[in-house]
């Protein structure tokens, strides 16, 4: 087949040709179809409203029994109009409700009330990426949230909307600063490389790279560089499906190892043009402050430190106790620096409508929010989303076009003051002088507000466009092509103006500096697919084959400028007297695949689903680029067996299982090459070149084999619906940067490691309809995941560089720490176990106590209550875990504030204080003992929590007098209550010393007409 190869330079032409090919057929066939559903006899007009007893139901299908292809859909206020014969019967159907047959009997106005039917939830189709599947016939493991769940949450990141709502999906928010990132783990940590655990994100069929777009030196106010996932606008999302097991993910082959997040955006709906305006605003605050020492406690600790060190005169630089600073002053620095209120406003307008064959949706969102830090910081986000669907009259040709454009403008402090607020001496001077200028207390005080004059700005523009064109060229044969394009641009700057320094230093704008990073990323994808399905007498066969060609071009330009004539020119690198380009690179990632699926469904009782994919990735060296991944899934709907068919208790029962393999190529581009790169630094006019890495051309895919068995059962007409799943994923051929000693010149080398990591666990979900009569409805959703991570095998672990990180048979999230033995009552020093009894505390030999940081279990409990026009939803999220305690970087007695419990420090022989002897920093034994202590099991504490993640109350105004207008008022809260034994601030964190997630309260109004 290589004769048909197209080469790099010819590919665009080829793509264009292929698109033209598809389009040309479409028009051809669209013309040839006859208008068989032309206007029929209209003699009788019927209208009315469809409700569920309380509220109008939009989107309900109203068909006529004798003419099944003449149907209509109710509009947003539940109203419908239809022409038919006066003697006919209406068939009114809607997902989640029992289908009603309503004889017309010459009436012109028919009000219809539908009854809830919990069993039909099984009829909902779930998006599985290349195909969709009926919930009841699903063989794979897929979790889903929909717009209904997302709308209730006052958050700006799509990952935030998923927290606590999906079994097996563990999400941690990195920072409470707007624009901060999230960490997501779908069924645990598969790769030993921390950054190799990202799932694949697909927006409307277009892969969306989650690789960071910021740069460590331009994104400094948040713990991790800017993530592109902030670009996704939650309010434009119709549903998020998370694919977990082999059956669902193997069709994504090499990129499915860590799960797949499918994001489907909102689509237009036919009917009367509908306008929805939503406005909300609210505020956010820090959830939890730490208890720190006040001035007398702090000064007592400091003085004791010097007494203990035998130092009688306080050094000149210790302004807090040597009399330079007022010793009676007290400031709660956490309140002063982090106690502000973030104000947020959200505005959204959408317009949708269309005919039976063509629908559209246009929406615009604008969001703005400030931070809890003092100062003028803000985050703005705007999004435009457009969708159009069209079908030819015979419905054989279909076209969907969706596009989303997002822009973000973020200006934040370059420093997160959380650690400063915890560290500052409580008697540190006032922030301002009486004249309003910043107080540096005669250059003895590093005013934290001065640091806020250094800012980072990020401007991000992102476009995702996609179209799906399909044509049913013969009955049961469908040709489809998915075309996608993304274009992302991120401009970040970190500005360090001279005004951030004490004016006494007389530092002028000639020493102001700025860092700037420009990232741009474009990608395109073409996925032609051919689908054939056939119905046999009592079975169905569905076959799909397809191919993928994808390319992603990224470029990055990282620059530094220093010395400006004026600070007002600081954003303009051209005005800098010294300019350096540190990074300028362009990378290309190419990817191609062939995939297929065969689904066989016998009598809707036995279902077999086979999927496979052959992948090629440019991230590997010659000979290592291709691999095949495949999976099989099967389901048995045992409730359809005769012996259970009419069972009044068990309404649904399904057993499903799957096994297969997926892979991961998350290693970065070009890593197999031995290259030199420009350092961007000049020496004698020559730009230096540096070796980029130790190189190994022979690494290849990481492979993850997944096994799952699950049972799904519904009782009492599915009013109680319970699912239990057990999974076991084994990830081998670990693609990692193997840590090397620094004597090799580098810290790691990329290679496949012959180690196997197993993630196994149980996931349970329970949905109950507790009350469903009359005006009051109450339902509950519960999910819990019990996950275990285990290193199965690692030949040569003991002799390897990993020997201090892992233990075979234990989790890969363990940390080896010292065993803390308490305080020596004689010396007052923390003591840890000298395991090998050599008289020295050395990390390799003596860190033998193991602490596991994998969450033991996590989940969520959601209740939805409805009474007439009122609706209340609340979600409790819970996590059982251990994590690092908050410890300051230095021992007690140093000029840094400490938790208030540290007042109970050892002072003299015989004391039984719970904290060691204070030191001014000169007692090296105490300093070493302190570092051993924070590296011991005493530094790891219970960080479990239960949190009222989300609460939403809404009320529909009874506007029956104004026809077609609906108005809803809502109150929403996020993270409002947190219950935890953790003392180091908020228990949800990955990096200590950064602003934790905020608690947020908003009030909103939504009007639809």
């Amino acid at each position, binding site marked *: 087949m290589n004769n048909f190869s197209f080469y790099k330079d010819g590919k665009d032409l080829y793509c264009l040709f292929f698109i033209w090919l598809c389009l040309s057929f479409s028009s*051809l066939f669209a013309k040839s179809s006859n208008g068989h559903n032309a206007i029929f006899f209209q003699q009788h007009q019927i209208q009315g409203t469809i409700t569920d007893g309380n509220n109008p139901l939009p989107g309900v299908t109203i068909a006529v029994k004798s003419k099944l292809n003449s149907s209509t859909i109710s509009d947003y206020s539940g109203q419908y109009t239809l022409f038919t014969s006066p003697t006919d019967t209406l068939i009114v159907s809607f997902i989640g409700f029992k289908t009603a047959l309503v004889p017309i009997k010459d009436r012109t106005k028919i009000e219809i009330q539908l009854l809830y039917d919990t069993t039909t939830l099984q009829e909902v189709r779930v998006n599985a990426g290349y195909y969709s599947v009926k919930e009841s016939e699903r063989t794979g493991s897929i979790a889903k949230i929909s717009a209904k769940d997302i709308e209730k949450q006052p958050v700006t990141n799509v990952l935030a909307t998923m927290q606590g709502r999906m079994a097996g999906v563990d999400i941690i928010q990195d920072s409470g600063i707007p624009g901060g990132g999230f960490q997501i783990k779908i069924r645990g940590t598969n790769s030993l490389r921390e950054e190799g655990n990202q799932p694949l994100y697909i927006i409307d069929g277009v892969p969306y790279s989650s690789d960071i777009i910021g740069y460590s030196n331009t994104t400094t106010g948040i713990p991790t560089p800017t993530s592109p996932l902030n670009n996704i606008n939650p309010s434009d999302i119709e549903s998020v499906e998370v694919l977990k097991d082999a059956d669902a993910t193997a069709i994504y082959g090499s990129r499915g190892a860590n799960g797949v997040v499918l994001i489907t955006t909102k689509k237009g709906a036919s009917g009367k043009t509908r306008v929805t305006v939503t406005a909300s605003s609210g505020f956010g605050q820090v959830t939890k402050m730490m208890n720190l020492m006040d001035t007398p406690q702090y000064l007592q600790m400091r003085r004791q430190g010097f007494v203990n060190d035998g130092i009688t005169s306080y050094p000149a630089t210790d302004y807090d106790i040597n009399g330079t600073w007022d010793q009676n002053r007290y400031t709660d620095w956490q309140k002063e620096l982090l106690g502000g209120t973030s104000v947020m406003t959200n505005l959204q307008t959408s317009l949708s409508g269309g005919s039976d064959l063509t629908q559209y949706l246009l929406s615009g969102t604008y969001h703005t929010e400030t931070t809890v830090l003092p100062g003028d910081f803000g985050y703005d986000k705007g999004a435009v989303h457009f969708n159009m669907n069209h079908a030819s009259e015979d419905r054989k040709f279909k076209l969907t076009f969706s596009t989303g454009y997002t822009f973000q403008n973020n200006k934040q402090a370059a420093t997160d003051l959380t650690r400063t607020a915890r560290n500052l001496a409580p008697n540190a001077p006032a922030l301002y002088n009486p004249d309003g200028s910043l107080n540096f207390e005669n*250059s003895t005080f590093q005013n934290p507000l001065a640091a806020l004059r250094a800012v980072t700005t990020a401007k991000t523009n992102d476009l995702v466009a996609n179209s799906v064109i399909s044509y049913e060229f013969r009955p049961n044969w469908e040709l489809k092509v998915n075309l996608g394009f993304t274009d992302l641009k991120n401009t970040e700057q970190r500005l360090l103006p001279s005004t951030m320094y004490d004016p006494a230093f007389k530092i002028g704008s000639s020493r102001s500096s700025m860092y700037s990073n420009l990232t741009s990323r474009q990608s395109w994808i073409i996925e032609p697919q051919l689908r054939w399905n056939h119905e046999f007498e009592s079975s169905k066969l569905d076959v799909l084959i397809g191919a993928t060609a994808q390319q992603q071009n990224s470029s990055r330009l990282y620059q530094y400028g220093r010395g400006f004539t004026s600070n007002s020119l600081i954003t303009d690198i051209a005005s800098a007297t010294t300019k350096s380009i540190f990074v300028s690179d362009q990378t290309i990632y190419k990817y191609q695949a062939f995939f297929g699926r065969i689904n066989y469904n016998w009598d809707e009782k036995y279902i077999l689903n086979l999927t496979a994919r052959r992948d090629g990735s440019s991230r590997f060296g010659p000979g290592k*680029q291709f691999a095949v991944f495949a999976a099989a899934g099967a389901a048995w709907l045992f409730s359809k067996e005769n012996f259970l068919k009419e069972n009044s208790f068990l309404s649904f029962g399904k057993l499903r299982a799957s096994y297969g393999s997926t892979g991961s190529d998350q290693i970065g581009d*070009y890593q197999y090459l031995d290259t030199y790169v420009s350092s961007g630094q000049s020496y004698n006019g020559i730009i230096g070149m540096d*070796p980029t890495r130790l190189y190994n051309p022979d690494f290849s895919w990481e492979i993850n084999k997944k096994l799952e068995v699950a049972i799904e059962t519904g009782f009492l007409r599915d009013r109680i619906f319970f699912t239990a799943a057990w999974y076991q994923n084994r990830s081998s051929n670990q693609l990692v940067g193997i*840590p090397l000693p620094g004597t090799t010149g580098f810290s790691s080398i990329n290679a496949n490691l012959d180690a196997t990591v197993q993630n196994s666990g149980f996931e349970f979900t329970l949905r109950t309809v507790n009350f469903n009569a009359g005006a009051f409805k109450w339902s509950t959703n519960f999910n819990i995941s019990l996950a275990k991570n285990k290193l199965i095998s690692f030949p040569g672990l003991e002799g390897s560089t990993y020997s201090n990180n892992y233990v075979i048979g234990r989790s890969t999230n363990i940390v080896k720490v010292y065993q803390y033995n308490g305080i020596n009552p004689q010396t007052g020093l923390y003591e840890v176990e000298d395991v090998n009894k050599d008289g020295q505390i050395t990390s390799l030999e003596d860190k033998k106590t193991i602490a596991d940081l994998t969450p033991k279990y996590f989940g969520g409990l959601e209740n939805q209550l409805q009474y007439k026009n009122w609706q209340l939803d609340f979600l409790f999220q819970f996590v059982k875990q251990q994590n690092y305690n908050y410890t300051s970087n230095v021992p007690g007695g140093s000029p840094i504030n400490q938790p208030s419990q540290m007042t109970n420090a050892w002072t003299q022989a015989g004391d039984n204080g719970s904290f060691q002897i204070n030191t001014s920093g000169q007692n090296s034994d105490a300093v070493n003992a302190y570092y051993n202590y924070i590296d011991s099991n005493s530094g790891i504490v219970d960080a479990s929590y239960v949190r009222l993640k989300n609460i939403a109350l809404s009320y529909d105004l009874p506007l029956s007098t104004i026809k077609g207008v609906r108005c809803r008022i809502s109150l929403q809260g996020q993270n409002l209550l947190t219950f935890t034994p953790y003392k180091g601030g908020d228990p949800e964190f990955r990096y200590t010393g950064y602003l934790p997630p905020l608690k947020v309260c908003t009030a909103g109004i939504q009007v639809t007409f």
Partner: protein
Amino acid sequence: MKNILKIPQSLFFRDKNRLSNCQFLLLALCTLLGSCNDFVDVDIPKSQLTAQAVFEDAATANAAMSGVYTKMRNSGILAGDATGISCYLGLYADEFDYYQQNAVSNFYNNSLFAADLGVNDIWNQSYNQIYSANSIIEGLNKSNSIPEPDKKQPLGEAIFIRALLHFYLLNLYGDIPYITTTDYLQNSRVSRLSADQVYQNIVKDLDQSIALLSENYTSTDRIRPNRGTAQALLARVYLYMKLYPEASNAASAVINNPLYVGESDLNKIFLKTSKTTIWQFMPSAAGANTSEGSLYIFTAGPPAIVALKPEFINAFEANDQRKTHWTTEVTNDGATWYYASKYKQESSTPTSVEYSILFRLSEQYLIRAEARAYQGDLIGAKEDLNIIRNTAGLSNTTAISAEEIIRDVLNQRRFEFFTEFGQRFFDLKRTGKLNETLTISKPGWNATDSLWPIPVLELNANPNLKPQNQGY
């Protein structure tokens, strides 16, 4: 399953009107399906060169050498900012007080521990720089397209760099491995060598680089090492090895070299044009001056990061002009601080006037003075010593015995080389005076502090480096 096989046939033969279209569609799909395994072959990125290509051309090989100098100037041992050893050892010994707020310096407190970031950083940066040097040595040796004579100078420079970095590592961390290859398998299992073995390797490398390097500088402003630079380091190495005749000879080779001319004006010694300079780093940009200048100089007190210890200032001999010209007093609200003002420029000037100087002629005089005294050549020793004393505005030495001369030489070294790459710390250490001196002036000092700890990650990654140094 038969049906599956039948359907495609029906596609092709049942309907003549659509036949060709369908065929074509399938063909298109198959073409795409079957096409191009080489779609996923990508070219090397435009901003990179393969290692092989770098050493096919003298210009790119030269750029690789420039890469090493920029790295050494900006990070690791020889960086002039707060992350290099000038600052770390100034704090660690008795030159600097630490003034940074809300921060604690483990160097200043003499309370280093094996996971200390500074200790790790110096180690890793140095071995990374050594890797680059080795990569250049191997690349040049393998290259067929660069003519042999053109290889000599860069090869000599790279070997010199390797020796220089190992010299500092040895004196900071004690016994260390000597890395001469880029092979990571070998380098990840290396063991520590005794100080003698490391010194032998250093001398061997320096002898080789002296043979390879050219007599004259290949650049203006002495910004790349020449033969004199390698001889200057060799003199220092022999002095540390207590091989005094060899130290004397190596120092003489530099002193007798007409390239180096004494400078009587103390204010001109640290200018980039100074003829006493043996090797210096060119700053990153046109107009930029030294990192040392921006670190040490402050115009108002209290200082931002470091200031010279008052005890050091008070220890200057009366009339020592170095106190007047190389230190500056800042007063504020009745308090007084001093900064090292060898470099006068805190930030950029229209054109650069100061470069960061790594080797100076005066060190060679003091090396030879000390070596001569040890060999019994007291007259020669005093001659050399007096050159330094007289430049500093001091009268001839009053020392008579060899012991007294040596004591004066060491005293002169303290006031000549303060804040220059830890000379003070290394002098105290090599002469066995570290403990007695620092126990008095540094409350946190312990006898085991003479060595830094081997980074803990290093011991974990390569157990052959064990045991850890005493005291950590």
